[in-house]
């Protein structure tokens, strides 16, 4: 009896966090702004939170996780600026066919950056949703 090969999917949050931390930190005016999978402690004035909220397995190796990118800042304007910068970085990653150093065949936009304050803290927040096409690798 043959045993099916294990195909391990990359963690989409890790890849997007790496891509955004690198991309955002290189932009003038955004130095030191970091992305992560959770709200940092202590809470910085500006940060990006990446969340995985489902998605689809398209084939044995190809998957399209749905990822939410949340940009937090002190004001709606600053949150929007950070959100749109993240949006540009996400689209560029799709065109470069690489997300956080892993193959990425496409980045689809579910929802553009929009104003949605954090309901817990009322902090300004811009959120956008993406479908990131990734490949699993044989274990």
């Amino acid at each position, binding site marked *: 009896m043959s045993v099916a090969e294990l195909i391990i999917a990359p963690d989409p949050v890790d890849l997007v966090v790496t891509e955004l931390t690198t991309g955002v930190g290189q932009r003038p005016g955004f130095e030191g702004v970091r992305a992560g999978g959770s709200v940092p402690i202590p809470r910085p004035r500006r940060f990006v939170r990446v*969340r995985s*909220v*489902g*998605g*689809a397995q398209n084939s044995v190796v190809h998957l399209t996780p*749905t990822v*939410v990118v949340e940009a937090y800042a002190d004001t709606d304007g600053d949150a929007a600026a950070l959100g749109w910068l993240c949006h540009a970085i996400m689209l560029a990653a799709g065109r470069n066919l690489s997300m956080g150093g892993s193959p990425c065949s496409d980045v689809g936009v579910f929802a553009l950056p929009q104003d*949605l*304050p*954090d*309901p*817990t803290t009322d902090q300004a927040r811009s959120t956008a*949703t993406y479908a990131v096409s990734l490949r699993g690798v044989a274990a």
Partner: protein
Amino acid sequence: MPSTVRIEITPGAITEILKSPEVQADLRARAERIAAAAGDSEDYEVDSRVGATRARASVRTASYAAMKDEAKNRTLTRALDAGR
């Protein structure tokens, strides 16, 4: 010898399909699955309609609790996969 395949699309036929009762029913069923996966029926509202070029269906939060849950936990966004 290679054969030639010729495809002719009747003007308006695609729009007719996109607005057909079958497509409307499929979209409505998908939206209802998403709403059911998101939570209680009183918290999410399903709507379907036929537009100028296609049928559409939508799910939206119908209570403050559901709106807050979406803003905090992405509950409705996470339920989208139920509509695939």
